[in-house]
C-alpha cells in the first residue's frame, strides 16, 4: 500500500508523539498519585471480575461508585501484559491517537491538508496532555470523544451513525465528563437556531438520543449518590478547603502555558471571527464545545485539567481555520509571495511553543519518589492487617494500593459524609504542634501509623511531626520517609 505524502507526515507525527511520550513515561519514575486508585480497581476486576464498589480500605471502608469501562479494558489487556507496563503504555498510545482524529476533524472543517497536519501536530504536543505518567480514564475519554464528534459531523455517510453510537456508549461508561459534549450539543442547537443554520434531522435525533442515554447511564451508576447528595453530586463532595485545587479560577497565564500560546491566540481569533464576522457554519459544533467547556469550567462543574485538555484540543482543530484564513488574507495583500513562507514561519513558531513546554510539563509531573513507594511497601510487610495509616491526601491511594491497609482519607470523596471534617483532621495531624490534639485525632479515627514522606516534609516544611514524642509516636521506619507507630490512645473520660 502506497502512502500519500500527507499520510506519511501524519504517521510521522504519530510516531514522534508516541516515542516522545513513552521516553518521558519511562524516564519519570512511577505514576501520578491519582493513577494508583485506577490501578487498584483494575487489579480488583482482574481478580474478581467486578469493580470494587464496596472498598474495605479507602476511608477505613466505604461505598464507592465510578464508571468502570476503562478499568475493564485494561483488565482485559492485563491478561496478556503486566499491569505496570500497561499503565505506562496504554494511556500514551491512546493519547497519541489524537493527531489522527484531529487531522480528520480539521480537514473536514478547513478542506486543507496542510492546515489539518498543523492541527494534528499541535494536538500531539499540547503541554496539558503531557501527563505521560497518568493512568486515568481521561486518556481513553479524549480520543473517543473526538472520534464521536467526527462521526457526528459525518452522520450523513453510511455507517457513521453506528460508529457514533458505539463511541458514545464507550464515553458514557468511561467518564461523567461526557456531560461536556451534551452541553456542547445543546449550545450547538441554540447557536444553529440563532444563526438560522438548518439542523440536519439525523443530527437532532442523535442529540436527543445522546441526552437521554447519558442521563440514564448516570442514574444507573450514581443513583445512590444522586439521592444522598442531590445536585451537589456534580461537585463530587470535594471538601471546600481543596475545592480550588479541583476547580481553580482560570488564570490566563496558566491557560496560555498549558494550551500553548500559538494555538491559544489563533483559537481565540478564530472563535471571534466565526461568531461575529464569518458566515462559515461548519465549525459551529466546535464553537459550541468551546462555549460549553468555558461555561462548565467557570461554573466549576468540570475539573480544571479536563476542561483545559478539551479546550486545548478544540483550539488545535480551530488552528486549521486560522491557517486557511491567513493564506487567504496573504493572497489578498501585496505581499502574496510571502504566502510560501507561512508554513515555515508557523513551524518555527510552533516548535518552541509546543514541544519544549510539553517536555517541561512532563518532567514536572507530580509523582511519588521511589523512596516513598518503598516505605508504603514496607508498611504492607510490617504492619497488622487492620492497621489504619495516615499519609497526605494524595498518598491515600498509595496506602491502599502498595500497603494494602486502611487509609484515613484519599481523593475519592463521593459518599463520604464528613469529608470536610476529615480533611481538617488530616491537615491538623501534619500541622499541629500539640500532642493532645494529634492523639485526639488518632484516637477518634483509630489511626495506628503516621507516614511522613519527603513530599509531606516539603509541603508542611517539617522534618518530623512537631508534637512527636517517643512515648506515644514511635519511629519504626527511618529513611527519607519516616513512619511512626501510634502507641497512645487519648481517653476523654
Amino acid at each position, binding site marked *: 500500500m502506497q502512502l500519500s505524502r500527507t499520510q506519511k507526515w501524519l504517521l510521522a507525527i504519530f510516531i514522534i508523539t508516541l516515542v516522545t511520550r513513552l521516553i518521558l513515561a519511562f524516564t519519570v519514575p512511577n505514576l501520578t498519585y491519582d493513577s494508583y486508585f485506577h490501578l487498584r480497581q483494575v487489579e480488583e476486576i482482574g481478580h474478581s471480575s467486578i469493580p470494587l464498589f464496596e472498598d474495605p480500605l479507602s476511608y477505613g471502608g466505604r461505598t464507592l461508585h465510578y464508571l468502570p469501562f476503562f478499568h475493564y479494558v485494561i483488565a482485559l489487556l492485563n491478561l496478556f501484559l503486566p499491569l505496570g507496563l500497561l499503565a505506562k503504555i496504554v494511556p500514551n498510545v491512546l493519547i497519541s491517537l489524537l493527531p489522527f482524529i484531529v487531522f480528520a476533524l480539521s480537514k473536514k472543517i478547513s478542506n486543507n491538508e496542510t492546515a489539518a497536519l498543523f492541527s494534528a501536530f499541535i494536538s500531539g504536543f499540547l503541554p496539558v496532555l503531557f501527563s505521560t505518567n497518568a493512568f486515568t480514564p481521561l486518556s481513553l475519554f479524549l480520543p473517543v470523544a473526538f472520534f464521536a464528534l467526527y462521526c457526528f459531523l459525518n452522520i450523513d455517510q453510511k455507517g457513521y451513525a453506528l460508529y457514533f453510537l458505539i463511541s458514545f456508549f464507550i464515553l458514557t461508561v468511561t467518564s461523567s465528563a461526557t456531560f461536556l459534549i451534551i452541553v456542547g450539543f445543546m449550545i450547538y442547537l441554540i447557536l444553529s437556531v440563532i444563526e438560522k443554520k438548518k439542523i440536519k434531522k439525523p443530527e437532532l*435525533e442523535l442529540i436527543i438520543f445522546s441526552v437521554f442515554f447519558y442521563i440514564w447511564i448516570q442514574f444507573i451508576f450514581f443513583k445512590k449518590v*444522586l439521592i444522598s447528595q442531590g445536585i451537589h453530586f456534580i461537585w463530587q463532595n470535594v471538601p471546600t478547603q481543596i475545592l480550588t485545587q479541583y476547580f481553580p479560577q482560570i488564570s490566563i497565564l496558566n491557560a496560555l502555558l498549558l494550551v500553548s500560546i500559538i494555538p491559544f491566540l489563533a483559537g481565540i481569533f478564530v472563535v471571534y471571527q466565526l461568531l461575529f464576522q464569518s458566515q462559515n457554519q461548519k465549525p459551529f459544533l466546535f464553537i459550541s464545545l468551546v462555549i460549553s467547556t468555558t461555561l462548565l469550567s467557570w461554573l466549576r462543574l468540570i475539573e480544571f485539567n479536563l476542561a483545559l485538555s478539551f479546550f486545548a484540543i478544540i483550539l488545535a482543530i480551530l488552528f486549521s481555520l486560522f491557517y486557511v484564513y491567513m493564506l487567504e488574507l496573504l493572497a489578498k495583500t501585496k505581499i502574496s509571495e510571502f504566502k510560501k513562507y507561512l508554513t515555515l514561519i508557523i513551524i518555527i513558531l510552533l516548535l518552541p511553543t509546543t514541544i519544549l513546554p510539553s517536555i517541561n510539563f512532563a518532567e514536572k509531573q507530580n509523582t511519588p519518589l521511589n523512596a516513598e513507594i518503598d516505605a508504603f511497601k514496607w508498611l504492607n510487610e510490617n504492619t497488622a492487617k487492620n492497621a489504619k495509616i495516615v499519609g497526605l491526601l494524595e498518598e491515600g491511594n498509595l496506602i491502599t494500593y502498595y500497603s494494602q491497609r486502611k487509609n484515613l482519607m484519599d481523593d475519592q470523596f463521593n459518599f463520604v459524609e464528613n469529608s470536610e471534617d476529615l480533611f481538617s483532621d488530616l491537615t491538623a495531624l501534619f500541622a499541629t504542634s500539640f500532642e493532645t490534639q494529634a492523639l485526639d485525632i488518632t484516637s477518634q479515627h483509630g489511626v495506628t501509623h503516621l507516614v511522613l514522606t519527603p513530599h509531606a516534609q516539603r509541603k508542611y516544611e517539617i522534618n518530623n511531626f512537631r508534637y512527636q514524642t517517643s512515648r506515644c509516636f514511635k519511629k519504626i521506619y527511618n529513611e527519607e520517609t519516616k513512619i511512626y507507630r501510634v502507641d497512645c490512645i487519648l481517653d476523654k473520660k
Partner: protein
Amino acid sequence: MNQNKNIIGKKNPIFNHILKEQKRYIFGLASVLLFLIPLINFFKSDSLLIGPESYYFISHSALLQSLTSSFSYEVIIIIPIILGLSTLYLFFALVEQMKFPDKLTLFFLFLLVMSPAFIYTYSSLTANSFFILFVIATLLLIMQEKKIFTSLALIPLILATLFDIFSSLILFILLIIYSINQQKKTSYIYLVIILISSLIQYFLGQPFFLGPFHIEHAIPDLISDFGGLSGISFFAILLSFIGIMITWKDKELYWAYFLIPLLVPLYFISTQIIFPFSILILFFAAVGLVKLFERTWNLIPIKNITFFLLILGILFSTLSYIDRIDQLTPSGDMIETLTWMKYNTVHDDIILSDAIYGDYIRTFAKREPFDTLYEKEHTALNEELLKNIEINKFISLLEEQDISIIYIPKEMKKIYKGGFIILLQNERFKLIHSHGDYEVWAFSSKEV
C-alpha cells in the same frame, strides 16, 4: 413507510390496544402503585401513611382524631387512595368532555401516575389531593348542560377554596381560562364566590401557602431523582422542555403557557405547590413525548431505542422512589418512642425537638412541640437552643420557655453533635427513655 414503523402509531397493534384500553391500564397501574406503598410500609413495620403533612392533618382535624381513636390511625390510608382513584376517574370524564386527543391523555396520565408527586400525594393526606379532586369536579360540573349540575358545582368550588389563598387563585385562573378557551360565558357568580371565600380566609388568617411541612429545597423537591420528598422524573423534565419548545407557537395551548410564568416563581417561594406544578410540567412532557415520537425520524432504530430509554428512565425514577419510601415514613421505633411519651410524660409538657418533628409529636405523643415548620413564633429560639453549646444559657432558655422534655431522633444526633447534644451530660438532664436510635430526655427545672 416510516409512518408504518411509528412506535406510537395506530398501526402498532400493541400500542393501539393500550390506547383503546387506556382507562383500565391507567387505573390498574395507579391501583398497584397506591396499594404497594402501604404494603411496603406494613412489611417494614413503619407507619402506613407517608409524609409529614398527613400528621399535620391528623393532629389538627377533630374528625380524623375521632376516627383514629375509634380505629387505628392506619385506617386513614384508605382516604388518599380513594381520593387518587376518584381523581383519575373524574379526570377521564373531564378529558372526554373536553375531547382531548387520546394519545395525549394516555401519556399524560401514564407520566402522572408514575410520578413520585402522584404517589406521594395519594399515599398521604395532603391538601393537594383534596384540592385537585374539587377542581376537577368543579370543572366537570360547570361543563354540564343541565342547570342543576352547574349549580352543584358551587359545592366543590367552595371546598376547593378552603385550603389556602393559592388554591383559590389557581381555581380563579382556571375558570377564566376555561371560559375563554371554551368560548362560553362562565357565570360571574363562581368568580365572585371564589373572591369572597378568599377574602374571608385572608381576614381569618389563612396563609397564602399551606405549610411547609418539610424543609424545602427547590431542586430536589422538583426532581425526585435528587432525593426529594416527591417531585417528578428528570426525564419528564427534559420531555417537558421538548414539549414547550415544539409547541411554542401552538395557539390551542396558550392556556398552559399562561400558567408557566405564574407557577414557576410561586414554586420557588413554596415547593408545597409541587403537585399542581407537576401536573403542568407533565402535561408539557406528554405533549413533548407525543410530538417527538409522532414525527418521522431518519434513524428508525435510534427512535425505538430512545423511546425505550425514556420509558425505562421514567420507570427507574418511580422504582427508585418506591425503594426509599420508608425514609419518608415515621419508623416503628419513632412511633414507639413518641407513644411512650404520651403515657409517661405530663400532659402540659412542652417538647423540644427539631421543628420537622412537630406534627409527629402532636399526633403520636399528644404533646405540644416547642416549634413546627409552619409556626414561626419560636423558630429562631428553637434554632438557638439546638445550636447552643453554653450550658448556662441553654438551661436558662429551657427554664424560661417551660420546656421539660427533649425528643432526639437519630438524625438530630448527627446534625447537632456539635450543638446541644454535648450539653446533655449535665446532671440536670436525664435519659428517661430510648428505643432504637430515638431518645427522650427529661430536664429538671431549678424549682423542683
